[in-house]
């Protein structure tokens, strides 16, 4: 089954946490702790999932084919248990579409002057 052939639209809108996970995985594969740190950093601490919550979301994203387990990245790591995650092609497309969707919403909000006088 080719992931690129799948229709990304049923996955939209993404939950806040899922979107942030996809964003955190944008550049390089990462393990859970690093993803958590990255999300906390990007959201200025506003989004800080619990360990359980994060792995729940990761598992769902893996099941949905948006994220996959990466082969072990860090050969120096003695701990072979550690799982790395990376974006699939489908995941990347879903993230892009979600960003586009949000951007459109923001534009509409701007037009309606929902951001106040400064907009």
């Amino acid at each position, binding site marked *: 089954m080719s992931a690129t052939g799948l229709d990304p639209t049923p996955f939209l809108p993404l939950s806040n946490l899922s979107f942030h996970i996809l964003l955190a995985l944008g550049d390089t594969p990462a393990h859970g702790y690093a993803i958590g740190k990255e999300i906390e950093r990007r959201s200025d601490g506003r989004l800080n999932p619990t360990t*359980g919550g994060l792995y*729940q979301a990761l598992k769902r994203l893996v099941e949905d084919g948006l994220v996959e387990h990466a082969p072990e990245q860090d050969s120096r790591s003695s701990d072979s248990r550690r799982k790395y995650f990376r974006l699939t092609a489908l995941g990347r497309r879903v993230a892009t579409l979600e960003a586009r969707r949000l951007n459109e919403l923001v534009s509409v909000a701007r037009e309606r002057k929902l951001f106040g006088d400064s907009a």
Partner: protein
Amino acid sequence: MTFVTWLYERLLKLYPASFRRTYGGDMVEMFGARAADAWSQLSPLGLAWFTGRELLGLLAGAADQRIRGVVSTEGRQNRRREGIWSRLMTGWSQEIRHALGRLAKNPGFTLATVLTLSLGIGANTAIFSVVNSVVLSALPYPDSEELVWLDHAAPGLNPDTRLQMTPGLYVHYRGRSQTLSEVALWSDLEATLTGHGDPTRVTATRATYTLGTVLGVQPFAGRWFTENDRYTDGTGVVVLSFGLWTSHFGGDPAVLGRTIQLNGFPLEVVGIMPASFTFPNEAMRALARSSANTKLWIPSVIDPATQTLGSFTTLGIARLKPGVSAKDAQRELDGLLSLLPEAFPGQIEQARQILDDARLSAIVLPLKEHVVGNVRQTLWILLGTVGFVLLIACANVANLLLVRAESRRHEVAVRRALGAERADLVRFFLTESSLLTLAGAGLGLGLAYLGVRTLVAFGPEDLPRLGEVSINGQVLAFTGGVSSVVSALFTAIPLVRGTHVVKTLTDVGRGSTAGHGRLLVRNTLVTTQVALTLVLLVGSGLMLRSFWRLKNVDPGFTARDDVVTFQTGLPQGTYPANADAAAFYQELIERLGTLPGVESVGVITCIPLDGWCAGNPLQVEGRVLKPGILPEVVAIRRASPGYFEAMGIPLLRGRVLERADHEERTGSVVVSAALAETFFPGEDPIGRRVYPSSNPVRSGWHTIVGVVGNVPANSVSRPADPLIYQAMASQDERGISSHSMTVLVRAPGQGVNLVGLIRAEVGAMDGSLALAHIRTMGDVVADARAQTAFTMVLMGISALVALLLGGVGIYGVIAYVVNLRRGEIGIRMALGADASTVHRMVLRQGGALTTIGIGLGLSGAYGLTRLMDALLFDVSRTDPITYVGVSLLLVAVAAVATSFPARKAAAIDPIEALRGE
């Protein structure tokens, strides 16, 4: 690895194995790393918050995974094609996550709600576990509902008297009854066990061999008694309790067949009962006013050929035949009583007396009812009390939820406008309230566990079955039920308040009118709260007054720790007659009198508050008994010289007992003032001759030589029992024995410090004697008041919690009102009202709510305290002092609670307030 990491790893087991295999290790690692971060960066509070949040996240995730596992093992891509059922379930798990998030964002609200609920639920769980174990659960015997207590009323003697059983009636009933499958008699005795280590004073139960059949309990080893076993003529058999077998004989099975010495008699050990077996159990023992546990059982042999009808000194229990009710049995036994004259042709005179004069009638009570009868009401009242506390707690939480619901009315209306079904909203709020209630119930269970431990440790000794109290499945079910009701109730509040879509959406910014509508609900809640609190305050106030009255009753003796008491018993083998025992005790009194600080020493067969002990109708010389009327029953004791001084009982007339009275067996007796008034009203009793027996007087009337003050036999609340004090020995050896005695040592400032010296003196006189029940008269009186004190303390705590919650409730509503009326208050102030006017206005509003609540509460209390009548002592349930006092207390608390928002209102800046409007 820290404890939390360890815990985290354990809790991971809740996830499905596949999930755990894939991610478990990483999760533990990540949690560990985060915990290390948190440890280095956060305050203790922050750490606790982090840990709680992580653990909750873990649990929510586990629930989510499990539900997914049940509903669908397919991937999420199929989600849109899944059935409604799985959508609902997925929704739930999401809902739980979201609700947890919302609650976490509002820690103040969450904490307040959970704590309030846990107080209410915890108190209810604790008291219910007591009610469940004591009142609801079965006694620990097979088919225990068939067990009945056999008792007899004798309205001809005294309407309150219960005569229990006699060996004669045992023979009579066993031979003829069709409703009882078996009857057993038993009585307690204190005995000294020797021959294995130090002499030990033990409680033994003397029972007919039929007791084994009645109770249906098999021995742990060996056998129970048979019809042929004996305990007379210096030989006999004995069955040991599991406790005695392990503590005294080291759990050695070889003890079966060995001989032990009890009161100097050699007894062969034939059986050991299981550890779970207690008979009589603590409850029945409480009724017999003895706090020790039976350590061994010895056979009571009743020969049908030689039984007399009289001597109501033993206790009886029986087992009903299957399908027979206690009432049926009672009717049958009443019928059997009328056959007494033909069954006992040799004792026809006594049979006639029992039937015609005493008007004996049978009482057959289910054993459980007999055991818990007098505390059942107290416990139900306590459960009702904590139920009120839960209601008050719920009212507070409801108020909190209303505040929250109002801030979310808009959200709810938008959700509905966007097409959310009502079911979705129910789910939304039910999730939140269930989580809150669940947390409250969890914490409440913890509190209840501690509470039950405390109750068992500090509860009164005469509260039956206290040892059986525990938190079990039924209690958990009760807590679950209560919590479900509470959570359903809380779900309803925001729904009722927040589903009117159009009205809410058009209502934006115009808070005041809708605010007043909601205010009515909150006013009703807070008024109810005040009313419930007042009822609790009245209840506990009445208990407090009763206890106070009870404490101030003059018991008629020295109820202080200066007087030490202990029991000891002389073996009849070494001291055959009462006179021998009297000589021993006389010497003991003299020896103990030389100890430092000792003012006086005395001995008696039965101290005040230790029960009726022994009693008989009292005949007066020269008075002919009218046919059909027996004289009143009086309690009989044997006492030594020095007893009245040691006990602090005042001599009113004549003299007290002297040494010559028992040494020369003068037949002198001393009577209590109550006896003198009953039998010799307006006459001088000194020199009159009496005899405590319903039988014709065969030898030697007793001469009254003195009158002493009244002391209570059973209860501090009934101080004037008629008592007669005989000397330790008299010409007539019938009646009570002087072998088992309670010794009193009055030594101001010394008290229990003397016990070591006392023990040495007793040991020096007879090394085979043991001391038992060492306590002071202060303890004796405190024990007697323990149940009232217990009820008072529990109701008092409930009332305090209620008062606190009620105060918080009033504060909440008034603060809300002030907020709602900010604009109006601003206008008033702008128009010239000064701060004190505004202050008074707010206070008046609080006052109005409180007054209505108090009014409702007073009428409620008037109705409900009717249930408490039996618990009160010397206080009317409509006692005006209590009603006025607690009302004032509530007013004061309400005033304090209102004063905070009132001050805030008075400080409102009119310009600010108007701008806000």
